[in-house]
């Protein structure tokens, strides 16, 4: 090879890669050359790997050929070439056939290779072995695990770990050796790397690998895991920090399996909080704080406080990652227990100006959550300075945090509104950012009525100079909705009409709708004439949509002259909102059915309507759950949001997932209601008034899984039992549920609709209908599932002809019709006033002996009463022994209001509750108060 061509090939690697085929050809030629040119081969392999790293791939035949040629290079003894060969084998094994042929060469290296290539050889085993050949490596791996050289031992442990899913039995055979490897502190031999300029330090990381492997082998054996923790926790046998963190995680695993174990680990955890490694401190603090979300009664106050203190000290270290990690944990705590981390506020405040924007944003959002009535205004002024300096993403996060803050501290609305208006007018930012501000403002207007006028005035100013159509339209809508009910509606009319004069057709149309709403203003009857004349002028607009809308509006306003006609009021200032899911569903059905080319008009009366307060209540409830939702992911069968908490910690970014689930829950509800109403027998009951959420009546893993839904009609109650058959070869015929009343018979059973046949792996509904005499009948029912089982013929998938089947029954949990079923959540802006105004009052006292935390009681109360927790009382503080919960709801029948104030005091004997209820309907109020638990 001349110097020239040699140089050329040398340069190629630096710049652009040559194309795939050239490299392939080069590799094939050079690898098969004899004698082997080690240097050139190593260059070519690295070039090939660069190609693969760039995402190129080879067809199977070519990859196999390459693999074959590469494995020929084993003939050459040079270790530095060999290391590259192993890399190539690892990469190529996934795309080529016959990888087994390299096994014998690899095994030879494991036995006789130098200490340099041995680990590489061992680690490549993962890629060439499969289920049938894994056993052949058993002896080699076993001796490598106990090898004194740390790199060899680590390689063998990792390989065993990778091989677990392929052949667990093989790996299990040397679990003793793996366990020894945890204790064995392997040092690098002094003369090991003669040929290298670097001197290895012994980090004992093979302890980490060994511990990880041993855990996987014993993960089903709680006792031996406990032994493992005891063995390594006390004595100072674990030197590696990764291994120590792994041990903390092991404790975490154990206490999540059995929370009672926590007490015996307390002192150990306390020690770990002051461990010399920050990673161990962090992991321990994570463990304690996340464990206490569900098991606060098991975690002692002192331990929790020292966990917080550890985090607090981590906030001040110079290392970015440590601060970041500690902040993440604190941020997570702030969602549920902001009061616990108030001690960290000074540190958090100093982090606002951290050079890492992630950290400063986390610090601010955490501070916003820990904020109390006293420091909000100073906080808000701090962010005002800060917000202009960060990117849009961070701005949105901050605005969201401010929004939650405003809902939690409604009394502080003034400074928050000032801040929001300021960033809205002066902040630089894209549509997404501005939209999030508008959303926050809309929330404030709807949940904090006092703020209305100030906000609307400022929004009027803002729309004079706004570049985004979307935002303008939303603001116009808000003005139209809220404006007519303010003290000086004429002011808004002027601003809205300005838009008609100055803006494009999209905004003009929105402005027309908005204007028309002012025509029916009660506060200022003179406005009507002005609006009419304005609309007449608009009716000559050049855009047809604008003209149409103006004409319709004029027509409706004229109709309102007639006092008996409600059309105008219903259409212009609608007080009701349709259940959109159900509406969409029905409309789709209507469109697709098309029986008589749309001669029968679409019937909207069957669709559920909500009043504004109800919609607000639903929104608020969702928002409250959303706040918790960051920590709580509802499990599939969790009907009790907030009580069945899984321990998944999800960061804000993933929240969309849960939202989707919520949406599906909504759809499910609509679906059940639709199914029910389509059944002939139920038509005479009239309109469906309320349905509960599905309640599980069996264990989720039972053979027959049953969920019940309670449907309320005016004089009737229908229980819907959704039965699913999880067996694979049995059908259930004539499935019924026999409900027998527990107490006095307030309800009169009418009929049962059985499921005729329930095929395997399907779900169907069985209904039981009752007539109720009293408005608020309450009763408990013991339920037994009756059915005839018949075996399926696997060939025809029909039951055997001569199989008579035999009758069977299956007991499921009882179902209760409670006062809460007659109530739905509703919103009130000023709970205290509403409460004082309600006429009838009832008081009841409860003593609860069970060992429950205040939060658990609170969750239970919210669920039982189906009321909306207001004034941010849905979170019970963990550090005091008393809490007051405020609940508000309305009767499902006539919308009469009911409000509850529940005071709870926790003592060593249990929890004492004093419930004070007030309502417009005395019976409902009394029923609710007396049936809290």
């Amino acid at each position, binding site marked *: 090879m001349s110097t020239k061509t040699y140089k050329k090939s040398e340069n190629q*690697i630096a710049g652009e890669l040559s194309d795939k085929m050239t490299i392939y050809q080069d590799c094939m030629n050079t690898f098969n050359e004899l004698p082997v040119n080690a240097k050139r081969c190593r260059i070519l392999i690295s070039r090939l790997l660069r190609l693969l790293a760039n*995402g190129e791939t080879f067809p199977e035949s070519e990859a196999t050929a390459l693999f074959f040629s590469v494995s020929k290079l084993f003939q050459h003894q040079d270790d530095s070439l060999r290391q*590259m060969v192993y890399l190539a084998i690892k990469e190529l094994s996934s795309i080529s056939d016959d990888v087994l042929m390299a096994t014998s060469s690899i095994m030879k290296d494991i036995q006789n290779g130098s200490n340099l290539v041995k680990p590489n050889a061992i680690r490549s085993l993962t890629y060439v072995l499969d289920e049938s050949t894994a056993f052949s490596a058993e002896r080699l791996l076993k001796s490598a695990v106990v090898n004194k050289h740390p790199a060899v031992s680590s390689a063998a442990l990792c390989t065993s770990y990778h091989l677990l*899913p392929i052949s667990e039995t093989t790996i299990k055979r040397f679990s003793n050796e793996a366990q020894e490897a945890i204790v064995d502190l392997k040092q690098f031999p002094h003369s090991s*790397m003669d040929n290298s300029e670097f*001197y290895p330090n012994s980090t004992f990381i093979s302890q980490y690998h060994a511990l990880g492997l041993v855990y996987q082998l014993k993960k089903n054996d709680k006792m031996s895991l406990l032994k493992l923790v005891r063995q390594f926790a006390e004595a100072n046998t674990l030197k590696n*920090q*990764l291994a120590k963190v792994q041990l903390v995680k092991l404790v975490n695993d154990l206490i999540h399996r059995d929370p009672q174990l926590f007490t015996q680990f307390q002192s150990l955890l306390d020690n770990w909080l002051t461990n010399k490694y920050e990673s161990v401190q962090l992991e321990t603090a994570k463990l304690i704080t996340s464990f206490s979300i569900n098991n606060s009664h098991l975690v002692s106050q002192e331990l929790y406080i020292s966990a917080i203190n550890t985090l607090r000290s981590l906030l001040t270290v110079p290392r970015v990652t*440590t601060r970041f990690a500690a902040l993440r944990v604190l941020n997570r705590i702030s969602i549920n227990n902001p009061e616990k981390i108030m001690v960290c506020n000074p540190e958090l405040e100093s982090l606002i100006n951290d050079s890492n924007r992630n950290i400063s944003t986390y610090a601010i959002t955490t501070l916003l959550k820990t904020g109390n009535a006293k420091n909000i205004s100073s906080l808000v002024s701090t962010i005002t300075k800060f917000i202009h300096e960060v990117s849009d993403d961070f701005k949105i996060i901050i605005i969201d945090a401010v929004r939650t803050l405003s809902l939690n501290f409604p009394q502080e609305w003034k400074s928050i509104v000032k801040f929001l208006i300021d960033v809205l007018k002066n902040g630089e930012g894209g549509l997404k950012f501005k939209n999030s501000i508008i959303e926050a403002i809309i929330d404030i207007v709807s949940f904090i009525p006092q703020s209305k006028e100030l906000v609307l005035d400022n929004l009027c100013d803002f729309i004079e100079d706004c570049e985004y159509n979307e935002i303008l339209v939303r603001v116009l809508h808000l003005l139209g909705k809220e404006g007519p009910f303010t003290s000086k509606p004429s002011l808004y009319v002027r601003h809205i009409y300005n838009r008609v004069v100055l803006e494009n057709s999209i905004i003009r149309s929105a402005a027309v709708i908005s204007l028309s709403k002012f025509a029916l203003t009660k506060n200022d009857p003179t406005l009507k004439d002005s609006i009419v004349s304005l609309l007449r002028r608009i009716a000559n607009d050049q855009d047809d949509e604008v003209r149409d809308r103006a004409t319709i509006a004029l027509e409706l306003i004229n109709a309102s002259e007639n006092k008996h006609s409600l059309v105008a009021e219903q259409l212009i200032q609608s007080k009701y909102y349709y259940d959109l899911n159900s509406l969409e569903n029905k409309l789709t059905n209507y469109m697709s059915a098309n029986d008589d080319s749309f001669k029968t008009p679409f019937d909207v009366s069957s669709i559920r309507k909500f009043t504004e307060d109800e919609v607000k209540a639903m929104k608020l409830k969702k928002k409250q759950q959303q706040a918790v939702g960051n920590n709580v992911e509802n499990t599939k069968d969790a009907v009790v949001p907030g009580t069945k908490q899984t321990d998944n910690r999800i960061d804000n*970014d993933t929240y969309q997932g849960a939202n989707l689930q919520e949406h599906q829950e909504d759809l499910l509800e609509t679906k059940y209601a639709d199914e029910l109403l389509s059944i002939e027998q139920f038509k005479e009951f009239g309109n469906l008034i309320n349905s509960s959420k599905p309640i599980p009546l069996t264990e989720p893993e039972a053979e027959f899984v049953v969920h019940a839904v309670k449907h309320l009609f005016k004089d009737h109650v229908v229980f819907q039992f959704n039965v699913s058959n999880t067996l694979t070869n049995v059908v259930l015929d004539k499935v019924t549920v026999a409900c027998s009343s527990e107490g006095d018979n307030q309800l009169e059973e009418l009929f049962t609709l059985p499921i005729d046949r329930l095929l395997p792996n399907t779900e169907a509904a069985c209904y039981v209908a009752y007539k109720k005499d009293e408005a608020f009948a309450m009763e408990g029912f013991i339920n037994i599932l009756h059915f005839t089982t018949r075996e399926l013929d696997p060939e025809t998938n029909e039951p055997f002809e001569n199989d008579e089947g035999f009758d069977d029954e299956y007991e499921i949990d009882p179902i209760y019709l409670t006062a809460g079923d007659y109530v739905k959540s509703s919103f009130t802006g000023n709970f205290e006033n509403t409460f004082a105004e309600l006429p009838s009052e009832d008081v009841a006292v409860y003593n609860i002996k069970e060992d429950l935390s205040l939060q658990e009681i609170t969750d239970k109360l919210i669920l039982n009463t189906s009321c909306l927790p207001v004034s941010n009382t849905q979170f019970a503080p963990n550090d005091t022994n008393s809490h007051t919960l405020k609940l508000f709801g309305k009767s499902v029948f006539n919308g009469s209001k009911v409000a509850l104030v529940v005071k709870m005091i926790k003592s060593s004997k249990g929890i004492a509750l004093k419930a004070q209820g007030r309502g417009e309907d005395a019976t409902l109020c009394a029923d609710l108060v007396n049936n809290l638990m």
Partner: protein
Amino acid sequence: MSGLSLYSVQSILILDSQGNRIYAKYYQPPPNVLGHNQHAAFTSFRENELFSSLKKQEDFEKRLIKKTHKQDSEVMLFENKLVFYREYIDLTIYLIGDPNENEIILQTSFNALKNSLELILNNGIDKKNVQENYDMVLLTIDEIVDNGIILETDSQTIASRVSKPPTNDNQLPLDFDKGLLGAWGFAKSKLQERLQQGL
């Protein structure tokens, strides 16, 4: 729960300043040892989804470089992953891990990556150097993370396990006699010099 699985690193990337790949590796651990709780299995299923095709990977890399270019924050949460990065003159090195993993552990591993590359690449970390010594870079990364498991965290140890390329094209037989004699002669003359100076 921050699972007990050893598979803590999801990906190691080296991208140039336009977001093009210099090196990219997405680790795909075997599916059924992901830890025993369903959630772990669920997220990593989604993770695999996210990185399942070359197109998705490259889109991810483009979004990543947009987010990190000229933003020296070292660590962040990005699309529900922990991302550790360091921007050099014309390239950025990334290490991406599970959001529930101990941040400091991942940082340790990332430091190992940075420091050992600094040791291996004598002339500093830049695009040209990485491409010229691609074999050493590959071996270094291979010694740091083994299919998602953190293998070693000490940069000296890692560097000591990375072999230099073979020096000669053709193996020249070494003349041992000459070499030893030469050394002896050199030592003798040096010793004499010293003795003379001392006297």
